């Protein structure tokens, strides 16, 4: 762990930047209530990097959108609190929330081919982000736009500013989305699988650069991914999500090397690099259950090799020393 992340971890204990408690975001659909997020707790210090890991459909994106207040009907935050820097994001009125979005809390989306508006020039999309939050001249905003492109390592920024999204590669578009996220110097960035749609080579670069940028500017980061390997070299701490709940949280080293929850264990065993080191390559058995039809008790029960009769009752998070927490009756302690 480098020095800044040690500081970040230390600060977490004092005054978190973001504190989510018991967040529940449900969708009332015709087929039933989809409990996409069902009791999530997240704590994040200033400048800290959290990896939010879980398979597709586990509720990672909805957690991110809940923080930004971007849940649309039929979805709704039905319970819990999101405290950001002393502000209650859930009860806050929409205009106040708008002023935080893209200014204090920014988000990067998964698919860069869809996030930029196809009919607007790049400069427009950057400048409007500045002017939505600050009374600055267009010339001043354009200068900031250019600086932001330089910051994310985009060559010949003046030319790119005049381009339309379709003229740029996927990697370039994602860099621009990152520049948009950074342009107002937010305190928190939520990155929702931003490299999943990109080539592996560009993936590595972008992860490295975003980490550097966050460290340099002291920006906290929630990096959402389905791939544990991606966050291993990036995050200070990792939260593992399954079926709308966080099942395990801990420092990256703890989670990767001493996973407590059987699901985390399964995820780690299915990463090929671990298998080649002598572990058997392991796939978690069974399929991701439908959120409309979760097993009674622990949602992982039907796939779990350690399940016991107690697991018919849903476990609550157990807090352990060192900031760890696990939601399991039989953790690998």
């Amino acid at each position, binding site marked *: 762990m480098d020095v800044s992340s040690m500081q970040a971890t230390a600060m977490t204990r004092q005054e978190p930047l973001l504190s989510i408690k018991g967040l529940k975001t449900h969708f009332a659909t015709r087929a039933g209530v989809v409990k996409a997020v069902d009791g999530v707790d997240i704590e994040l210090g200033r400048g800290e990097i959290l990896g939010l890991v879980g398979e597709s459909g586990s509720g990672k994106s909805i957690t991110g*959108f809940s923080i*930004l207040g*971007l849940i649309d009907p039929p979805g709704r935050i039905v319970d819990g609190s999101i405290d950001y820097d002393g502000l209650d994001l859930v009860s806050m009125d929409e205009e106040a929330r*708008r*002023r*935080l*979005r*893209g*200014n204090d809390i*920014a*988000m990067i*989306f998964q*698919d860069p081919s*869809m*996030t*930029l*508006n*196809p*009919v*607007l*020039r790049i400069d427009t999309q950057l400048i*409007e*982000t500045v002017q*939505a*939050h600050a009374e600055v001249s267009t010339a001043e905003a354009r200068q900031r736009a250019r600086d932001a492109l330089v910051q994310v390592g985009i060559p010949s920024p003046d030319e790119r500013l005049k381009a*339309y999204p*379709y003229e740029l590669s996927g990697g370039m578009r994602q860099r621009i*989305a990152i520049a*948009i996220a950074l342009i107002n110097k937010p305190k928190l960035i939520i990155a929702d699988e931003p490299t999943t749609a990109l080539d592996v080579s560009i993936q590595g670069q972008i992860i490295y650069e975003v980490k550097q940028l966050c460290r340099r500017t002291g920006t906290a980061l929630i990096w959402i991914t389905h791939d544990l390997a991606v966050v291993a070299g990036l995050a200070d701490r990792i939260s593992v999500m399954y079926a709308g709940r966080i099942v395990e949280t801990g420092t990256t080293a703890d989670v990767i090397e001493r996973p407590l929850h059987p699901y985390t264990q399964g995820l780690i065993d299915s990463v090929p690099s671990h298998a080649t080191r002598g572990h058997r390559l392991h796939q978690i058995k069974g399929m991701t259950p439908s959120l409309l039809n979760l097993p009674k008790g622990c949602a992982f029960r039907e796939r779990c090799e350690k399940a016991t009769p107690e697991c018919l009752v849903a476990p609550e998070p157990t807090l352990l020393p060192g900031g760890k927490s696990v939601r399991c009756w039989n953790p690998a302690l």
Partner: protein
Amino acid sequence: MRKKDRQVPVFIINRLFQAIGVILVMSVLVFVGLYLIGDPTSMLVSPEATEIERQALRKALGLDQSIWVQYLTFLGNAVHGDFGRSFLTGQPALQLIVERMPATVELVVVAMTFSVVVGVPLGILAGLRPKAPSSKAIMTGSILGFSLPNFWIGLMLIMLFAVYLGILPASARGETVNVGPVALSILTLDGWRHLALPALTLGLAKAALIIRVTRAATREVLPMDYIKFARAKGLRPSRILNVHLLKNILIPIVTVAGLEFGQAIAFAVVTESVFSWPGMGKLLIDSIITLDRPVVVAYLVMMVFFLVILNLVIDILYMAIDPSAREKVRD
């Protein structure tokens, strides 16, 4: 870059060639069609006229020749810009049409402006909250405007505003002001009063369509990631609506509004007939009834040209709205 600059004229020239092909085919069809329907001289002479008088008239109009000779003569003259004279009045067909043009263009421009100004906001509203009662009311209205026959809407408006309330005239063009050679109603109050009902009749039907297109486009664009991203950037709702949404739904709206505009200019027959509006549609229907072939043919040729040009304008508008369309033109 040089390639890009040269490509646009090529695609324009292609379109013009297409237009000439369409005009040739269409003129043959109209010629043969009107030839089969009947003898125009029967419309022109009194029932008591002798066969000799009729023959003389046929000869004078060139109708004694075979249909193909007549057609080739027409083509030969048309190439030189001469579309013949009306059988009925003897005036040059082109002149007749051009004289009627301002009335139609004026009517259609006002009607289409109304339909866009009313239809786009209502369509967006209905698209933003599809389940709200107001949206359902808008859509019901649009279905009515869409499915009720245009002449019936016209008659109802006449009943209400002209007969029952007696506040608006039901026919003719009212006072006009000449701007150069062009007579315009929209410059006088009386002109507007006459324009109101026909423009409303035509505009309501078009608005119904614009509402549906706008609503569908809005519903398609709203779930897009770039709209969510715009919200995540903290943009004000007005900016998201007026820039991010509107610019994207403009493409289908321009398509439909453009085509409807062309359709209305070329064939505003029903509305013009109901309101005795002295425009081109009225001229067309009158000429068809009297089998006044030179006018009908000249009219249709002009309209094909007009529609081709209009399509070009729509394509150029696309390119202005959608940057990636500029790219596609090259292929």
